[in-house]
């Protein structure tokens, strides 16, 4: 009887210890993934959330979803792909029904603009600013998935990785990116600032 009770207690204790070890390893992985990718997540937030307050909320939400999904991370995809998936899925869920009205914001960053195929030799600052605001308008007319694709293009993510994140085939992504860039170029050509 005493032997049975003792073995039961030992089993309970070992389960408790095992759970503790698992929890600690989850914490370590989580902290490492988030601290390594903090900048990247903040940039994604800045595309989807217009105000500082919204960005903070979205960042918090991404952390929560990353915590909930960290158990599913088994290294099948790269950490970058994993964190981008969590960030973009959260951004879509965060906006919910308001997403259609949500503004997609692009910072005036030369790297981001060159990833978008924005003309480098734009010359005058005023012309450049006008073109930039036109670009913002055109980007906001894209569909939700197209916006998600373009946010990854702006991050300099490869087509193969974008396909992995979005869940479409690589050729499909390549065609979409090409078409979107073409339509952005077209929209920049029109109006008073045609070159």
């Amino acid at each position, binding site marked *: 009887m005493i032997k049975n009770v003792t073995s039961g207690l030992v089993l309970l204790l070992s389960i408790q210890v095992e759970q503790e070890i698992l929890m600690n390893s989850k914490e370590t992985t989580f902290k490492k993934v988030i601290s390594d990718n903090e900048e990247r997540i903040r940039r994604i937030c800045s595309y989807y959330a217009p105000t500082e307050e919204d960005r903070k909320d979205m960042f918090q939400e991404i952390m929560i979803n990353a915590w909930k999904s960290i158990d599913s*991370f088994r290294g099948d995809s790269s950490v970058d792909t994993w964190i981008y998936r969590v960030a973009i899925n959260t951004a879509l869920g965060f906006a919910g029904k308001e997403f259609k009205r949500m503004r997609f914001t692009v910072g005036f960053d030369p790297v981001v603009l060159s990833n978008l195929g924005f003309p480098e030799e734009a010359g005058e600052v005023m012309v450049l600013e006008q073109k930039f605001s036109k670009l913002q308008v055109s980007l906001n007319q894209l569909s*939700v998935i*197209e916006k998600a694709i373009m946010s990854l293009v702006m991050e300099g993510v490869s087509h193969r990785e974008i396909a992995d*994140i979005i869940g479409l085939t690589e050729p499909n992504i390549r065609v979409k990116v090409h078409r979107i860039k073409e339509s952005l170029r077209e929209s920049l050509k029109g109006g008073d600032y045609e070159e």
Partner: protein
Amino acid sequence: MKNNLFARNRSQEEAIRDMDSFVLKMRVEDERNLRIAKGMFAVYFVGIFVYAAIYFVNIFGDFNTLERITGACYVAAFILFAFIFHKQKKDLVAVSYALPVVEMLRMAEKRYQFWRPELWYALAGIVIVDIGSSINVCQHIEGDMTWLHKMLSVHAVLIPIWVVAFMVGVWKYRRRFSPHLSLCKGCLSRS
């Protein structure tokens, strides 16, 4: 320069402190959710057996056949609702934000459908509760009415209650879930 370095170190320290408190908060929440899930399971498990023993098996011998049928109906409905809650909880836990975006949208589209299997199970549960309640009430109605008349009188009250409850459910669905469903459909149709 020195000031900048100091500010940077301080913000890094704050970030680490924030992260630690965040992880702690999430850990506490995970443990709380697990406790609630275990508690709910215990309540359903014990509840089903206690109710079945008292009302259906009739361990105290207090109930007649009709009351025992009523008890059996309530136990069956209880099992059905426990199954629905368990399935919903399982589905919610299975939501992973690490899925590819299109796959996540497809899963969300399924989750936000109105006529889901869970709704059919819930409607079956309501029908079972309705049968149990009407049998129970009918046997206590006095007077020269036939069983058909008694059933019709009981349902004159019960049916409006079920209809109102259903309409409230539809209204809540339209407010909370329908916009998500149209967002998912919109995204997928243009992907």
